[in-house]
Every structure is written in C-alpha cells, then in structure tokens.
C-alpha cells in the first residue's frame, strides 16, 4: 500500500477546491441574475408545451396566466440579461472542472480512492450533485435549479474546507479495500441525486401558487420524483455493497452499527416516498414532505452520525 503522499499534488488539490467554491459562488450569482432578469419562463413556448403535457393541467393554466404578470415581454430587459444564463452554465462547467480536478489530484496524491474521510466524501458528493445538475440541464429545461444547486455545492464544500479538512494521507487498514470504490462511489452518486431531489422539494414548498420565476409546482415535483427514481436503486445497491464489505471486514454483513441503521432508515424513508406516490396516490405537499424527511435522514447519516455517534464507521476522521 502506498504511504507516500505527493505534497505538490495535494497542495494543488487544496488550491483547486478554493477555486471551485469561488466559481460556484459566481455561477450562483449568474444563475440568480438569469432567474431574475432573464427570459421569463412563460415566454418560452417549448417550456409551456412541456407544462401542458405534464402531470397537472391546472398548473399549465397557471403558466399561461402568469405570462403577462411576469412582465418579461412588456418591460425592457437589460441587454446582458439574455446572456446571463449561458454565462452561468459556462461558469458552472468551469467550477465542475475545478471540483473534479481537486478530487482527481487528491486521489493521485495519496494513491488511493479519494473518499476515505469526511472531507473527501463531502467534496465528492457536491461534485456528484453538480454533475447530475449539469447533465440534466443539457437535456431538460431545468436551468432554474442552477442557482440553488450551486449554492448548495458552494456551502457544502465551504463547510468541508472550513470544518472537515484533513491533510491528504493514507487510510486506516479497514478502509483499504477495493470495496471503497464500489460502496462509497454508489453512495456518492445516490447522494448527489438526492440533493437534486431535495433542492426541488424545498423549492416546491417555497414556491407560492401563482406567478413566479420558478417553474410550476407539478414540474418541480416531477423533477424530484425522477431524481429519486434514479437514485433509489443506486442507494439500494450502495447499502448492499456496504453489507458485502462489512461481511469482509467485520465478520457480519449486518450488525446494526449506527451508520447501517441510518442508511437503512434513509432507504425505508425513500421507499415510503415511492409508495406514497405510486400506491397511495399522494401528490404535492404531502409527498414532498415525505421526500424531505427522507432527505433529512440522509443528511443526518452524513453529518450527525459521523460527528455525534461513535461506531465502527467512526474512522471517518473528523478533525
């Protein structure tokens, strides 16, 4: 096992991560300007079509009604505003590249998968969330999420840098296994998608009925649902891979360690959300609240369990 750390690369990673936070913050401002002054959503015919074909016809009606109210057509828009959206996307791709670069250089510097402690884990989850957003917005009109996802990623990484940062270095023997690539990567990808769903859910609750710069509530809800449908099997896989690893490392595949308990609770909560929607027909606020409860258990497992509860997983190295 490599024990040598390349200090140059480790330093580069730390610099890149600061650049990431900076770029995400600037991108967030650009997205916000786009949201506030850019082309009003309802002026976009394609988008209206999507809304009309969407789940909730009533929402499409609101959409039509909000066109004059939004005032995008009537008032003069600043000339730069039209470009704010494109600039924002470009900025977040730059931020993404810095984020990915930080993860890769750290991995190369220490010669192992770069998610062996909480700092690395949080940085990777933010990367996953931004990746999910960027891929989604390339195919669907979800640019409005940009401001919020960028803010969440900037806050997450900022928090990690300020409170969780540990020097690059090798991991303890229990983490030194190829299972880290399988189990933790799956958890990171699922968490990134859950962040997209959680962001949409919070926007759903924040958005009032009636005219708004944000898309309709039905669209927000369906976005969250799609993200969760993608994330849930990945999370299931992550939990199972974790059990397989535990079987190798600790001699049992399931031992009700606090981390396991909370991963299980998160799983049940998201399963309950899917059930509530599919079988009980819950929609709107009720389903969103279930989704956000599930999201809260995910965050608690990430932050709370690592910091407040000690267990076998506690080698996450919180400084």
């Amino acid at each position, binding site marked *: 096992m490599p024990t040598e750390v390349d200090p140059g690369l480790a330093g580069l990673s730390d610099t890149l991560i600061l650049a990431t936070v900076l770029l995400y913050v600037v991108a967030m401002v650009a997205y916000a300007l786009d949201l506030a002054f850019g082309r009003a959503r309802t002026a976009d015919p394609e988008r209206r079509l999507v809304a009309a074909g*969407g789940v909730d016809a009533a929402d499409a009606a609101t959409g039509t009604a909000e066109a004059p109210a939004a005032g995008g057509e009537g008032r003069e828009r600043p000339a730069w505003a039209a470009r704010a959206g494109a600039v924002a996307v470009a900025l977040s791709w730059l931020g993404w590249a810095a984020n990915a670069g930080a993860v890769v250089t750290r991995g190369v510097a220490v010669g192992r998968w770069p998610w062996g402690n909480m700092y690395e884990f949080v940085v990777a989850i933010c990367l996953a969330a931004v990746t999910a957003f960027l891929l989604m917005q390339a195919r669907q009109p979800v640019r409005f999420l940009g401001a919020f996802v960028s803010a969440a990623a900037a806050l997450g990484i900022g928090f990690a840098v300020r409170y969780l940062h540990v020097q690059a270095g090798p991991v303890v023997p229990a983490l030194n296994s190829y299972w880290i690539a399988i189990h933790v990567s799956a958890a990171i990808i699922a968490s990134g998608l859950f962040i997209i769903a959680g962001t949409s859910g919070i926007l759903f609750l924040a958005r009032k009925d009636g005219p708004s710069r944000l898309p309709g509530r039905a669209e927000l809800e369906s976005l969250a649902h799609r993200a969760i449908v993608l994330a849930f099997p990945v999370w299931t896989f992550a939990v199972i891979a974790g059990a397989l690893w535990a079987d*190798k490392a600790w001699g049992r595949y399931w031992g009700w360690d606090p981390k396991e308990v909370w991963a299980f609770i998160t799983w*049940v909560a998201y399963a309950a959300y899917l059930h509530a929607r599919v079988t009980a027909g819950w929609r709107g606020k009720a389903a969103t609240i279930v989704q956000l409860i599930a999201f809260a258990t995910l965050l608690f497992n990430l932050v709370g369990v690592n910091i407040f509860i000690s267990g076998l997983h506690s080698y996450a190295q919180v400084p």
Partner: protein
Amino acid sequence: MTSTEELRPDPASPAGLGPLGWMRWAWRLLTSMRTALILLFLFALASVPGSLYPQRSISPEKVTQYFTDSPELARWLDRLWLFDVFTSPWFAATYLLLFLSLAGCVLPRASVHLRELRRRPPAAPRNLSRLPRHASFAAEGATVESVAAVLRRRRFRTVTGPGWVAAEKGYLRETGNLLFHAALLALLVAVGAGGLYGYRGNVLVVEGNGFANTVAAYDRYIPGAQVSAEALEPFHFTLKDFQASYIATGERRGQPLDFTARLAVSDRPGAPERTHVLKVNEPLDVAGTQTYLLGHGYAPTFKILDGKGQVAFEGPVPCLPVDQVTYTSECVIKAPDAEPDQLGFLVRFLPTALPAADGTWVSVFPGAANPTAQVFAFSGDLGMRSGEPQSVYRLETTHLKPLVMGDKTKPLAVGEKLELPGGAGSIQLTGVREWISLQIAHDPGRLPALLAAILSVVGLVLSLTVRRRRVWVRVGEPGDDGVTTVEVGGLTRTEGGPAFEEEFDRVVTALQSPGAAEAAAREGVRNAH
C-alpha cells in the same frame, strides 16, 4: 396506474361476523398497503434507539459504563430492552408483522400477476379521443393487420377485433415489482435462518499460541438457537506472528497503515498445515466458517519470583489498549501461588516510552519502539479462593497491601528486573509479544441473502424504469379513394415525464407510413436525446 386499481379498500370492520370473519378481517387489515407502509415506518423508527443507546451486542463495556454513570435511568432503559434493541421482543414483533404483511400481500399478488401475464390487452374503448393521448389521420391502404404488424414490430402485445387493434407493453414492470418484493421476503428469511443456524464467537490469541474451533476455546460464544456444539468446523491454527505498521511522521503520525497476521492453519485434525496471511479485509475461510481479524494489542511477557525465590508466574499477559493513538495499555497479573503472600500486579504498558515534563512517563507512538512497563505491585489475599469467577483484566486492590507504585519511577525495559520491597519477590519484563482478537462466524444465510439482495436490485430497476402503456387503434372503412381514417389513442398506466408522449408520437408516425417506420424510429431516438 396498476396499484391504485388493485388497491384493496380498507376493510370495513365486520359487524356481527363470527371468529372466522374477524380473522379474515384482521388478515386483510394486516396485509393492506397502508398497514405495510405503517409497519415499514415503525420498523425504521424501531431501529433508531439502537443507534442512540450503546448496545450490548456491539459495545458491552459502554453499557456497563452507562450503568455506572446513571444507574437509575439505565435500569429503566434496560427494562425497555433499549440496550438490546435488535433482539428485543418489540423489535421482533415489528419484524414479524412486517414479514407477515409482506408475505400476505406478495403471494396473492403473484398469482394475480401470473394470470395477468397471460391476459391479452383489453378491447378498444368506444371513444379514443377521450384518452390522454390521441391522434387521427387519413392513411392509404391501412388495415387492421398492417397496423397490428407495425405495433408488434415495436414489441407491443396485440389483439385485433373488427376494425380495432389493442396493444400493450411493459409487462416487465409488474414482474420486476413482484421480483423485488419477493426478494425482500427471501432476504428476511435468509437473515432469520442465518441467525438460527449460525454462530459467532470471539477469541484473543497471543503470538505463539493456537486456537482450535471448539466451544470451550472461545472467550465469548454466541450460538444460534439451532446450532449444536458438534457442528463446529474442526479446524485449528497457530498465530505465528503479527505485524502492525504505522505512519511514523507528520500530522498523521501513529495512524495504523496495515495489520498482518501469519497463521499456520490446519483445516481438519491431522490435515497438513498451510500458511494463511490474515488481514483486515481478507478473512480466513474454512468451509464457510470465516475468521476475521478485529483488533490487536500487546502481551508483554513477565517472569515473577516470589519471596521464596520460586517462579510464581511466567508468560505473556494480554494488555488492553486504553488509548488508541499511543496504544498505552493496561493489564493485570495475578500470582496466587506466590509464597508467603499472594502477589498481584497492575501493569501499564508503554510501547514507545518517553519521560514527560512532570516526571511521569508516557507513550508517544503505538509501535513498540521503546517498550516499557510501569508496575504497581500488591501483596495479600487476591480473593481467588472464594470460587467466584474473576475477570482476568481486573484486580480488586482495596484489601491488598501496596508494595510498589511505579508511575513516577523509570519503567521497566525489556530484560530489567524490579525487586519488590521487603523480600516479597521480583518481577522481570522478559519480552514483548502481540495478541490479536478474532471473530469467528458461521452464517449459512450469507449467500442466500446476497442472492436475494441482487434479485431485489434487479427487480427494483425493472419496476422503476419500465412503464406499462397501452395503445388502441381504430381503422375505418376505406373510402372510394382507398383512404381510411385511422384513430389512435394511448395511455400509460404509470406516471412519468414527457417520455410516453414522445413514444406515442413515434408510434403515430410509424403508423402513418409503415414503410418509413424504421427511419422514423431512428429519427425518434435522435429527437429524444
């Protein structure tokens, strides 16, 4: 949507029914969707206290600590099984109820689904324009057969009637959903069976010593209810040597890097010995019985002479680490055969000892770079003759006479000897060995559980990604010009974004020009991206 249609209404309470009626009502209530959801939530909720209170099965020492710190509260918590959440009756009750509910709902649904799989798509509704998706166009030479052929090429299952075609696809969704729920059921069974027919145990082995897999050899042995002592796999091994390596410099100085234990293993009595390198993520497997490396520590060896100059103790003494960073460890030596008085020792073992500013000695590194032992010696009645079992890690010193308090004097280095005052004897640190703690487990449910878990993911992916959709086509009578009116209606039984609309449009395009169907399909794929 399937489920809403199939959802049973909540059973009304059976006024004036006999016992059979009540039982049927209770069964229906138990296996209803809402009950299952509530049980699922309860199951999750029930596991929360297990993560907040220390558990006997995981960290018994913390439970003991809890009892010392707040005995009154601890007694109450204990009465509610809060230190044994995962083996408590109320946890078992939620588990069993969930299991019953799941079984009661999955099994009947499976038979419904089997019938459903053979059922053909229902006939076209009277008014296709009322369906969520609808289109109509004029086509030349379209017939029921040509329409059905186009749909079949798109892997719809079709039924034709006079002037209409009914088509449906996406049956895999239901199959996947059933697979998922059935796999969950199988997982619960595998976990339960593993607990009944498996066992686990812990043992501490010092370098140079061996272990034979028998119940008596374990320090702690936890068999399942259906395990007999004869069923234990009869292997044995000797711990040849253990190596731990640590980071030597920098911010992370002292962090462990690697643990390696070399075992000489014999799979059966009389079988040839083989060498196995045991590491943290690489257990030893003997016919399905796994041996895991869990922990390690120091076992300094001592030679103790009593007041008469006779050897009262000689050998390794396992010490428990009290500090993971420096591996400062503590242990107890009892020499009940010492004469004229019994001798007892508390030892603090410092792997890399350095003098501290206040005159005490501390360990600064977990590796044994400068191993020393601080000795606290006592004489008197060790209380071992009463017959009560005593922990080998505890020495009750209240009734003993202190002879040496070693915390301020220079600790013993290897080879050094300490004469006890008053000619009570001597103690010599003769060497340092290491010990490892092992978990040995046999769980016959492991592989079935793994299989069930894999199937559940497969089922889950199918049930979440495949959507059930129906398309109906009505083909009118051809007019004089050979042109017919074709009406198409479609609906998806599953919610989703615009994907079905796109598919529907592609189907319509294909129907409009059956010859160009393939081209249209390709086009559609491009559009969708």
